[in-house]
């Protein structure tokens, strides 16, 4: 067996980082140290984020964007300051950034713009200027990819069902990259009938980083809009939404050290302006009469009801925390340091896992253009059983299809085990993972 060496270059001072996360100090089944390798599902939260939420409630709590008292002013300022911080992180204008309850809702906000605009147009009802581009007709096409999370697939299937549009998709190669050259399911599925192209920035199963610029270029060449699921990229690498080439970018707060209950939709302002509302009610209106209503400009148009202010403040604190990180050698800071850390761990994990006979990684074996989701199958042991043995040793991974069932079908597996790494993980977590996988093989008598 080759002796693998733990990575040293490019890492964060992960032990110091882990000390900021109270939950990582607890023990799990059997008194084992918690080895949390499920940040792709949700990340843990540092004290700074918990404190920011608590301090909002203990000092400033009020319903934002309504009322004129001091607390309402402070709460509104805190909420809008958070929007500014998050916008800065991804190179956006704050007015282009909509808070939603999660990324799924953010994607549905866009998908419903299409079905709502289509329904209103069919009845000759008023639409914002420029809304024609959201009106779909039978024969129009929607393009997704085979590696989408259900959150960026099912909403588009629904739009197709409601409007008569046709859903097409780009396939996935054996290696786990988008199969752009495939004769039937390649980039050529984008054609003059295509109105929307929805794809992931980084697969939550394979770890693959997709060539967004290339796909966006093909989409824009035919006048289609590009919706990007950035749930697995914004928390893990520097992302500049303007430079990506997408028209919409959705991500969630809870996967990037923030609280649950908050997601983000970024959209080009002229597009947001021409979209009909999604959820309707208080605070998203301009004028309300019994006969009908007009709507506020974005982002307020898409933030109906009293919003999740404390969660926004918590997410703002998470952004501050991420931007304050430095690699152990001091060479990198912020999201570049996060990306470098994860790259080193991913490479080490790929090398270590593929050393184990009977383990097969589903996804690129090369850490280039690849994030930290490492999904694998162990010959002779179902992923659920692998996960159970790992859990018994404190190693917490995700098992199942990870909300990407068609992708698992593509690879002919019912389920995989998935390890994902984040800022608080270190090489010893990889070692514990690999030792636990070997233990599972011996427990089930397959090694």
């Amino acid at each position, binding site marked *: 067996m080759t002796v693998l060496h733990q990575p040293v270059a490019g890492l964060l001072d992960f032990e110091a980082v882990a000390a900021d996360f109270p939950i990582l100090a607890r023990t799990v089944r059997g008194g084992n140290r918690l080895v949390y390798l499920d940040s792709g599902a949700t990340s843990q939260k540092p004290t700074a984020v918990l404190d920011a939420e608590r301090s909002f409630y203990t000092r400033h709590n009020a319903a934002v964007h309504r009322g004129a008292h001091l607390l309402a002013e402070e709460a509104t300022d805190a909420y809008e300051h958070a929007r500014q911080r998050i916008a800065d992180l991804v190179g956006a204008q704050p007015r282009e950034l909509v808070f939603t309850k999660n990324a799924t809702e953010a994607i549905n906000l866009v998908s419903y713009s299409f079905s709502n605009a289509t329904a209103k147009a069919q009845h000759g009802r008023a639409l914002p200027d420029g809304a024609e581009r959201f009106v779909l007709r039978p024969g129009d096409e929607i393009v997704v990819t085979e590696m989408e999370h259900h959150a960026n697939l099912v909403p588009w299937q629904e739009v197709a069902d409601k409007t008569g549009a046709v859903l097409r998709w780009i396939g996935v190669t054996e290696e786990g990259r988008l199969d752009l050259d495939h004769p039937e399911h390649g980039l050529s599925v984008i054609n003059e009938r295509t109105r929307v192209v929805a794809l992931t920035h980084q697969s939550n199963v394979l770890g693959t980083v997709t060539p967004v610029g290339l796909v966006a270029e093909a989409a824009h060449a035919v006048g289609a809009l590009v919706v990007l699921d950035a749930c697995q990229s914004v928390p893990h690498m520097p992302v500049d939404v303007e430079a990506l080439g997408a028209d919409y970018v959705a991500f969630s707060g809870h996967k990037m050290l923030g609280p649950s209950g908050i997601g983000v939709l970024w959209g080009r302002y002229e597009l947001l302006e021409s979209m009909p509302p999604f959820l309707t009610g208080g605070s998203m209106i301009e004028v309300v009469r019994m006969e009908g209503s007009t709507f506020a400009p974005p982002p307020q148009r898409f933030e109906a009801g009293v919003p999740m202010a404390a969660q926004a403040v918590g997410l703002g604190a998470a952004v501050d925390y991420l931007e304050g990180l430095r690699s152990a050698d001091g060479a990198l800071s912020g999201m570049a340091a996060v990306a470098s850390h994860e790259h080193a761990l991913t490479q080490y994990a790929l090398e270590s896992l593929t050393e184990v006979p009977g383990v097969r990684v589903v996804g690129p074996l090369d850490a280039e253009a690849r994030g930290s989701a490492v999904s694998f199958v162990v010959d002779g042991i179902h992923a*659920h*059983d692998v996960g*159970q043995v790992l859990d*018994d040793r404190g190693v917490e991974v995700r098992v*199942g*299809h990870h909300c990407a069932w068609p992708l698992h079908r593509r690879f002919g597996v*019912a*389920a995989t085990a998935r390890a994902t790494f984040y800022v608080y993980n270190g090489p010893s977590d990889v070692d514990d993972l690999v030792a636990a996988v070997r233990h599972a093989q011996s427990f089930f008598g397959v090694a």
Partner: protein
Amino acid sequence: MDLESLYQEIILDHYKNPRGKGLREPFQAEVHHVNPTCGDEITLRVEIEDGAVADVSYDGMGCSISQASASVLFEQLVGQRIGQGMATFDEFLALMQGRGTVEPDEDILGDAVAFAGVAKYPARVKCALLAWMAWKDAVAQAVASTPEASA
């Protein structure tokens, strides 16, 4: 420790050597059940004769718990009267939903008592119940399609 109480020898034995696996004729009802959280699935057929479970045949893919529970179901329920089978089902369901507080009755459950440890792992209860829920569904369909079968 807990891992051994979950994966008892009986379960591992049924997993490695499943009894009655494979789809067979004749059958009065066939159902297909999936566990949406993990993608496990089972196709299960039942044949009812003179008010008794004459055969249960099944195929599918899933974890050791779901596969072993289908095998145990076959051993336990084939040959039972429908009413008796339903009582066994109820006993197994109560055990699985008991979070480890229900004392299993071996006279009713047979090898299925080995699943007592599963009840302590809420995420795995659905695995153990997959085949059993499919069986109940299939029996209900078989009875509905041939009213005399419930005699």
